[in-house]
Each structure stands twice: as structure tokens, then as C-alpha cells.
């Protein structure tokens, strides 16, 4: 598997094709916005009944990332569950598959706006976490440096010889990094839209996911 290595606040990091971030020095694996239980929540509210395979698909990818990187610590950057009811409804199925992977590792559930409370799966529940000189939280805060967050589900569109290519992406500038959503059924926000364009510095870089992640100046 081809990741893209880069440095952020003196930390050597790797953007993995799956959308996970790996920090070899700390053996930390970071994923954001898993949104487990999204289909369940949509159906519960009288919405569409989407193919109920997103849990399996997302877990398959997460377990593969864990198997390949063998992390000491796994950080889920919030919105791991689509809401607390979804956490209750799907928690057991998730626990069953995650338990072997959680054993012997530090596992952090950062709180998100969708899951602002303990999800009853073991591991630690934190509002945010600081590791070496990097801070992990769900939603980016102004003025912080060395911050890694999620929440916005960034994606980017580039036009290549008349062909438009849209990909999930990581956004990185001198101060902060925003990770893409890792969950299978998660929409995205184009990085050229104001919420993200205003958040990131003018010289920000986008790493577009794919079989081999690729870095570009952030499309605006």
C-alpha cells in the first residue's frame, strides 16, 4: 500500500490511501468521522433505507489499516457514531469486531457533535487529546497550531484535461490539518466552499486520496 509521507509541525506523518493518518514515531493511527450506524439513523427517522452494509465495509477497512500499521494507539477523531441512539443500536456489532483489535492498544474516542458522550465500548473518552506537540479534536478551533481535526468531511475537485476528478482529501496548512471522513457512507464538503476556504491558510495543501494519495495546492 502506498502512503504519502509528509511533515507537519516537526512530526513525520503518512497519509494512507484509506483516509487514515499514521504517525510512525508514536505508532498512532488516526481516523475521523466513522459515522457508524448512519443507515440505521436515517431509517429510524423515516428517511431512505440504504444498503445496510456500511458498518461492515468501514470496519473491514479500519481493521486492515490496523493490521498493516500495528499501532500502539488508535485515535477516532469524533463522530464515530452517527448519534448516541445509533451507538446503542450498533455498538454490539461494532464491539464484537473491534474487541480483538482494541486489546493491547490504547484506544481513544474523541467526542464529536454527533456522539457527545461515552459510547460504552471500552477505550477512553476525551474531548481532546495532546500527543507530543500535536492536538487532536473533532472540530477545528481558531488560532490553534499543530491541531488535527475532522468534522468537515473535506473533498476536492480537480479538472484534468477536461476530466473532473473528485476525491476525499486531507487539508494541511502551517497550523492545522483536517482529515477526511473515513466512514463509507459519508458525503463531503468541497474545499473550495467558504467554510473550508476561509479556515485554511492561502498556501494550504490538499492530499487527494486514491490508490496512491497525491498532494496538490488546495483547490479553491
Amino acid at each position, binding site marked *: 500500500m502506498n502512503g504519502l509521507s509528509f511533515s507537519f509541525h516537526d512530526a513525520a506523518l503518512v497519509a494512507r490511501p484509506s483516509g487514515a493518518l499514521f504517525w510512525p514515531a508514536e505508532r498512532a493511527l488516526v481516523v475521523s468521522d466513522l459515522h457508524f450506524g448512519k443507515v*440505521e439513523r436515517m431509517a429510524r427517522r423515516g428517511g431512505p433505507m440504504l444498503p445496510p452494509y456500511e458498518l461492515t465495509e468501514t470496519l473491514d477497512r479500519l481493521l486492515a489499516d490496523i493490521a498493516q500499521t500495528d499501532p500502539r494507539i488508535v485515535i477516532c477523531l469524533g463522530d464515530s457514531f452517527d448519534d448516541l441512539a445509533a451507538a446503542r443500536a450498533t455498538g454490539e456489532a461494532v464491539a464484537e469486531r473491534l474487541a480483538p483489535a482494541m486489546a493491547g492498544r490504547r484506544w481513544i474516542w474523541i467526542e464529536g457533535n454527533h456522539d457527545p458522550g461515552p459510547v460504552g465500548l471500552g477505550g477512553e473518552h476525551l474531548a481532546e487529546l495532546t500527543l507530543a506537540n500535536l492536538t487532536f479534536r473533532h472540530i477545528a478551533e481558531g488560532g490553534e497550531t499543530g491541531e488535527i481535526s475532522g468534522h468537515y468531511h473535506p473533498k476536492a475537485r480537480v479538472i484534468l484535461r477536461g476530466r473532473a476528478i473528485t476525491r476525499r482529501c486531507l487539508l494541511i496548512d502551517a497550523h492545522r490539518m483536517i482529515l477526511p471522513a473515513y466512514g463509507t457512507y459519508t458525503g463531503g464538503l468541497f474545499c473550495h466552499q467558504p467554510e473550508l476556504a476561509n479556515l485554511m491558510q492561502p498556501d494550504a495543501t490538499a492530499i*487527494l486520496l*486514491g490508490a496512491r494519495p497525491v498532494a496538490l495546492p488546495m483547490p479553491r
Partner: protein
Amino acid sequence: MTAHHPSLPPQIEGWFSSRGWSIHPHQRDMLSLSDQPCQLLIAPTGGGKTMAGFLPTLAELADGAHKGLHTLYISPLKALAADIKRNLTGPIEEMGLPIRVEDRTGDTPASRKKRQRADPPHILLTTPESLALLTSYEDAQRTFAGLQRVIVDEIHALSESKRGDQLMLALSRLSTLAPNLRRVGLSATVEDPQAVAGILAKNPDPCAILQADPGPDPDIRMLTTETPPPWSGGGGKYAMQAVLDQVKAHKTTLIFHNTRAQAEIFFHHLWLANEDQIPIGIHHGALSREQREKVEDAMIAGQLKAIVCTGSLDLGIDWGDVDLVIQVGAPKNVKRLVQRIGRANHRYNAPSKALIVPANRFEVIECVAALQAVREHTLDGDTDHTGPLDVLCQHILIRACAGPFTADELYAEVRTAGAYADLPRDTFDRCLDFAATGGYALRAYDKWQRLIKRDGVYTLRDPRGTQRVRMNIGTIVDADKMAVRLQKTRGGKPLGEVEEYFASTLRKGDTFLIGGQVVRYEGMREMNVEVSKTPYQKPKIATFMGTKFATSTQLSDRILAMFRQDDWPELPQHTRDWLHLQRKVSKLPERDRLLVETFPHDGREHLCAYGFAGKNAQQTLGLLLTQRMEEQGLNPMGFVCTDYATLIWGLDQVSDIPPLFSRENLLATMESWLADNAVMKRTFKGSAIIAGLVDRAMPGAKRKTGRQATFSTDILYDTLRKYDPGHIMLDITRQEAMRGLVDFGRIEQMLDRIGDRIDHAPLTRVTPLAAPLFLEPGRIPIQGLANERLLDDEAERLMTTAGLEFGPRVPS
């Protein structure tokens, strides 16, 4: 003189005679047969069709005894409903009849819509979508109690579309609510009235078919010009001056084009050549409503000498004094041509005048074939129409909104719609299960099912679900579009729409044509494309998609029949010489054989297969053949196709032709190709929206800021294929693709036709018939460069330009 009719009240008789008008024979026939459960009237445009449809209603309502809704009138166009309201209200007032007429469309204010349900007018004019919505309310029973007649206008246009299928399912519901309901269809000339009648009637009721006098034969010719048409391409630019001369010589001319892009380009050139400043307008479906209405008003007011238009003017709004119709580009389909010609001379019993302008040399042959067909009164047959299942799924949800139902009742009701008469019970049950539970192999939604079955009765679990179903009603699925607005005008004057994909390829400074003017792309603001005016630049052409029609089987057959002639005195000399030359150096294609030419050209090997299967099927054939050649290591590099042939080029010569075209090989390739294909994903998206698997994106709805809630349906398609390959949505997608864009049916027809009679002509140079294909636009490269490779190049270039640096790629 008015013939007296016993059932016609004196007010109506008086109105006709006071104007010195007589009732047409077919209008009288409609009256005398008005107690039949189903009537279909086939009449040419201008034959007083609408009045024929409404006369029995006026007669029955004349005494003022009927309370509530009596007649429902359905038209495919909102504008038509408004038009009919005007044309009906006048006579009703003049006759002094106690009849209330109202229309109800997407544009009707909510307060009036609500009142219409509680206190419906005698005559309600509406569209298929608005009717489907009406039947979804719990008080539908009350609204439609006492309904006597339903009139479906332009049923020929509806009978081949999903909108028609939705309408007929709604009528199946109305016939349950109002058992005495009589159905009336009004149709333009069609090849097979029986087929339309079968779709209209409540199965198995009979349907009386009335044919109005078709009037005199049209005066239709091919426009001959000094310059011969070009070898390839479309648009008819070469005939600009001749068309302008015709416009000058007539009162009002409609100039039809097959695609919006061609209409735009033609209009642009016409305007440049228009030295006398003749008032000419443009009208097509991608223009903003304001723009279209402006043109329509100017037309009605008689201010325009000509309108350049597309199918958006196909349906029968009365434009007054049109005395010439010009069709630019081969008509592709005889029925459509005849209906378009009918737009000229909207007076009964006057011949319509029309000219066809072939856009290229091959189209000369096609136009001559079409003219023969018109003269011989043979239209294109309707293909078998079985009701699509995505529409059925939506109907089941609409039915659930109105109240509880049982599967047996609904199944019986659905089968009264002709297109669903043969629907197998297990297919219905799968659709019902999909609507109720999602229909997944993994029973994930036991707790949150959309429909709950209790004691054999289905009800909606969550009453909030009704709103969602209602917001998603409809069977038209558009590509995502973006409004185009002029910068720096108050409120940003809307010019029209382009597809989101097209907008995404624009860069600041690019110019394109819309509404006949060249505009310059300035940027994107709040999901609008902002443009400025630039009158003098050469445009980059807007590629917004109009409907692309494939040449009908009948026309293809006629052309192949012409090829059997020894000579072609009916063709212009240049086209005649061309066919003779082809016969001399190779041969002409034949109906029951397949001609495959191979020849080297420009350092590459070429293969040209004359399948005459229509553009979509020839394109599919191109994809299948190149995939097969790729597997055999023949290095195909690309292909291009027309309605008649597919031309493939590559590095290696193909020597063994017949196995390429064996049915087994094509089918096997088809299976593997279909699965992972953009066509399938596009088709899946359409069917997923119609069937209610995902919500329709609301036009004009403010996009959620922050995180986006929607995601690509491609992910759903991939997930289903991986985890639930037997799911009904995949079956539906396959069915729809096969009869839609893939058009495999036409390939199979071709294989039936040719059997094993394949003629391989190995030649040393390009043949006359193959030559135009080299100029044809729309060449498709075989998996050109992979996206990853493109991305890498671009990334390197951009990062270098921006002076940014990133660490080396490492295995992780």
C-alpha cells in the same frame, strides 16, 4: 350548418351556430360514444381535438346538477394546462354554463391547492406529477368521489415514457375511488393506435378508437442548396442562407433541431448571417423559464418571423400562424417528423408545409428514406412497453401515504394498468418488500421498516414519511444542473442552465453559447454560474446534453433497402456518385448480412462494422468489440460511431472477424462490462431516485453548510454489488440500462438479422462509406491514461509552480 345532436344542450348548440361553426364529425362521434369506458381519439394537430375531448363534459355539466369534480384533464406540460384553461373558460362563459375550471400544477399557490382538495372545481386541469401527489393524500377518496371523466391529452407523448406509466398507475387508483370513471385519450397520429389504447384503457376494458380525418398529405421536401452538405457532423450550417431565404418567404417558420447544442450553434450563425435583422427567437428546455416565456409571448403576439427550437416545442401549444416547419438534421424517427410537420398550418384541412435539411452526406440518404416513409404513411412501430419497476416502487409508496392497503388489493389494482397487466406476482412482492423493508438480504431494518404489515394490512410506520414520499414524486431525473446568471445585473438575470459537470470544466475567461449569445465565464457563486457578456468572441461550445435519438429501425431498414437499388435517381448527384464509388471499391451493406471492412490508414489498422443498429447500440457494440480485442491482445486504441457504423482503430489487424460478433461472445463480454460501468452507475442513480432508495436533490434548496449530508450514489451501487448482488435495485438498473443507453435490444435485433452471414472485406485503403467516420466527433479512447497518472503529472506541475514541497512517497 350544425347537425343537431340529441345529447347536446341548447346553450352549446346555440354557441356553435351563432358563430356559424359546425361540429366536426369526430367531435360528434366522441359525443355519441361518451358513455364508453374508454375512448381514444386520433386526430392531427388543429383538428379541434381538445374541444372533442371536452364537449361531452360540457354537455353533462350544462344543467348544473353535478356537484364536485367531474372531469380531470391531464397534460404533459404545465403550460398546456394553462393554455387549455384559457381556451375553455372563454367558450364556457360565452355559453353561460355553470362550470368552474381550475388548473393545478407545481406553480399553483399552496392555499389554492389545499382548497381544491376540499372543494374541487368541476374541471381540474393538471399534470401527471400533480395528480400522483393528489392521490397520495388521505382525503383522496373525498376529492375524487363522483369523478366521471379523465381526459389524457398528448397521450402519444406520454405512452412511451415513465411519466405515462406513473399516470396510468394513478388512474388505476382513481378507477378504484371512482368506479364509474370513463377514460379519454387524445393523440396525434401514431402507427399503432391499438397499443396506445391498451395503455390507456383499464385492463381488461375495451377501448373505442376514433380516427379523425387526417387531412391532406403534407407538402414536405428536402431543402436543396448550392453547396452540398458536408461529409460529416451536424448542425446544417452550410444551409444557413437557404434557410434565411425560406424564413423571409414565409409568415412564421419553426426551425427544429435534434439537440439543444445544435440549436444554439445554428441560432448563433443564423443571427450572424441575418443582415436584415429579421426577428428570430430561440426556445429549448435548457433556457430559463423567463427566457422561454418571453419567446412564447412574442410568438403569440406575432412579433417573430422564426423560432429555432428543439423537442421543447413538440407538444401542441397553439402558436398561431406557423406556415413552414424546417427540420435541420435527419429526423431519426418518422413519427416525430410527422408530428413536427403538423405544427405548420394549424388550420384543419390545409396541407402542412415542411422542409428537411440534411446535416451531412449520409443524412441525405436518411432524409430521402424518411420522405418515402411519410408519403407511404408508415410510421415507426411502438416497441413493446412493459411497466418499469422503479415507477411501481414509487407508486407503492404513494399508495401507502393515502392510507392502509393489502398486497392483494394493490396487486389487482396495479394490473389494471395496461403496462403492468402481465406483472408477475413475485415481482410485485419484491417491489413491495423493497418499499417496506429495503429488500436487503441482511434484514437490518426490522425495527425501522418504512411500511409495517399488521394482520395483512400495510401502513406507513412513521407518518413523517409521507412528506418525504411526496417531495420525491416524479419520474424525471435530471442531471445536476446549475443556473447561469449574468453578473452585475440586479438579482443576476438568469439565462438558463448547464450541467454541473460542464460547469466544473469551465475556467475563468472561457466562453460558451447560451440563449443564442456568447458569454464569458467569470466564476461560481452560491451554486450559480456567473457570466458576463462578450458579443464578439468565438465560443467554446456548451456541451449540455439534449436528448440524443437513435435512428429508428424502420428508417435503417429503408436505407438498407435503398442500397439494393442499381441506381439512385432520387438522390442528389453527389450522393449518388458516392454510393456508386462505395459499390465499386467495396460493397454496400445489406439488411441480412453484416459488412465489416478492414483497412490500414495513417499507420493504424481500422475495422468498420456497418451494423445499422442506431447510435446507442453501435456505441455499445464499439465498447464490447474493443474490450474483446483488448483481451485478444489486438491493442485497440479507440473507436467512434454513428447510427450506422462503428469504426475501431488500433495497432494490430483483426483477421478472424466472425467470432468477434458471435452472440455468446458479445453476451459474455456484456456481463462483465456492464457491472462496472459508468452507464450502469448513471442508470442506477436515476432508478434509485425514482424507486425511493435515495432522496431527490431539491432544486433551489439551500445546500447544507458545514458537512454535506448527501453522498454519491456510486458508493451505494458498489456496496450493493459487493454485499447484495441479488438486490432488486440491481435487477432494475440492468433492465433499464439494457433498454436505455446500452440499447442491447438493437444489437440482438441486428444479430437476428445477420445470422452468421458476415462479409469481411479486407481492403488497402479507406472506403467512401467509412471516410465520413474519420471526421465524426465523439471519438472514445480506450481507457486512455489512467486518472492516477493524470493526477500525478498535474500534482507535480502544480506543486512546482506553487513552490511547495512534499516528502518522498514511501511504502507505509
